[in-house]
């Protein structure tokens, strides 16, 4: 049996490779494979736009998905009856300013900036913000325990909706 990756040995380049792979899965709508990147005890969240520093579990946030709801979100998005995303948006993610913010015995805290472009029916919007990740090194690579997308937009105008994974 092979050993888990060691968090102390991982470089920013390793982390960037992982985040770019994740972005590619999302841009290609390979959402089931994307879901496989998460641990069972995972959390995906987007804070309320006017309360970016508050716990999304205690505020009227935008997203606060534990594993069960994250799976349901993915199942839903792949259906043609997920009307807001039928036909699917085209998206293009730019991930930059990747930093390893902390190293625990079996986890990495990572920060990054994002710009997500979403194009649909001739309308283009750009979501801008930063990610906070807790990544877990495993034998088969990194896994996501916590993924938080913090929007810089305080008012979702003209975005209107966040029907894609951000």
């Amino acid at each position, binding site marked *: 049996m092979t050993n888990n990756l060691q968090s102390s040995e991982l470089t920013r380049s390793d982390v960037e490779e992982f985040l770019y792979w994740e972005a590619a899965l999302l841009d290609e709508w390979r959402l089931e494979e994307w879901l496989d990147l998460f641990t069972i005890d995972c959390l995906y969240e*987007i*804070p*309320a*736009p*006017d*309360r970016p520093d*508050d716990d999304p*579990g*205690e*505020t*009227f*946030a*935008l*997203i*606060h*998905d534990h594993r*069960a*709801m994250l799976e*349901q*979100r993915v*199942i*839903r998005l792949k*259906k043609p*009856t*997920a*009307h*807001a*995303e039928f036909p699917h948006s085209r998206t293009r993610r730019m991930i930059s300013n990747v930093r390893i913010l902390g190293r625990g015995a079996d986890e990495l805290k990572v920060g990054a900036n994002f710009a997500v472009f979403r194009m649909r029916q001739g*309308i283009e919007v750009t979501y801008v913000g930063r990610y906070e990740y807790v990544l877990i090194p495993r034998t088969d690579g990194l896994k996501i325990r916590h993924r938080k997308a913090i929007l810089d937009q*305080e*008012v*979702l*105008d*003209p*975005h*209107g*909706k*966040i*029907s894609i994974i*951000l």
Partner: protein
Amino acid sequence: MTSIEKLVVDDRERGLFRVHRSAFTSEEIFKREQEQIFNESWLYVGHESEIANPNDFHTRRVGGRTVIYTRDRHGEIQVMLNSCRHRGAEVCRERRGNRKVFTCFYHGWAYNNEGKLVAVPDGDSYSEEFDRAEHGLHKPRSETYRGFTFVNFGAAAPSLEIYLADARYLIDLVADQSTTGMQIVRGIHNYSMRANWKLLMENSCDGYHGFTVHQTYFEMMMNLGVTPGLIADKSNGSGRELGNGHAVAESPELGMPLMSEEILAATTERRAAMVARLGEAHTKRMLNTTRNLILFPNMALIDLNFGIQVRTMFPTAPDRTEITGWQLMPKDAPAAVKPYRIDNALTFWGPAGLATPDDVEGLEQCQRGFASMREIEWSDISRGMRSAEPTAVDELQMRSFWRQWNERITGEKSLPEGPRYDTSYLGGATPDAVLETSGSGPSQ
């Protein structure tokens, strides 16, 4: 007026109701709405729990203006226009906070939180005719009912309570859910829609769209082991007019996703306490029906049992709407129930929920479809029009809204439709009949 002779066709005999699609697209009608509806109606500003302490304030846009919603140093609720009486600049540029004084940074005029002008730099240079008392922040009429604060920019409107008519029962059914008061949860959803505001008013009380638009939401619930009330119960609820353009769609409870043993126990205990306080019939109406209430012109108060959504929608153009969503919670909800309600609420509502984006998509597709207006002039809202007992999946709710809208825009009056809201759960302690006496429109 535009060249259209009639905007609403209300044919009671044949049971047909149509709205001309220019109501959603015309610049002229958009302007009339600003003057004849938004400048003359009670408009929701905020909930008193958002300004719990003296000097707490929020700034927000209401009816195209920016207002300061604050609790002054004496504890009184104040709504003031956020515009300096000197040259017009906004005196408060923060979204929220706690302040006793609002100082305009342009020339330094300062106002206390009762709106009084308290400082004018170099004030001696003004003539003796300049009266500071006449230069306080402008305060439009504002009134608060059961914690919900409204403003009215017009002079002729009746009191808020009269205006709310039978909608008061529905507000009471929310406000009475806690003996310690209701609380707006921190976190506000501000988002926009490329569609006319009235489409969202219709949608906010539309039971008919539930299974088509939100099929994936119900599938999610069933995947997680919940049977939605509508499926289990087979009842289609009721649609009722509440007077002055307000209306409600009431349905059996929707079900509670992700319910744990702990939450179930806390919810059961809470219900028992409610029965002891208010009786079974009242409790059932409060906790075991879902109620989609619309308040004319632009507010919705939606209680789906797992959460309570407060929503306003203001047009910025015929095809653009600014939407605000808040979440309301009983202050005394058990500690485990609060995050459970929040999770359910944001999973359904809001711009990243599993339901609301599909609503917005539907309304934006309607707006796109209106491009064919020359060929397809009318939208149909006739469903259930000759029914003696209109249901939540009929369209009486929307017709109530549209009749009031039509009266405001064209002056054409209409009679109520359908039975009055059933208040038998109050056990005969029904307040005076308000529907008949309040009439409609701001002139009465």
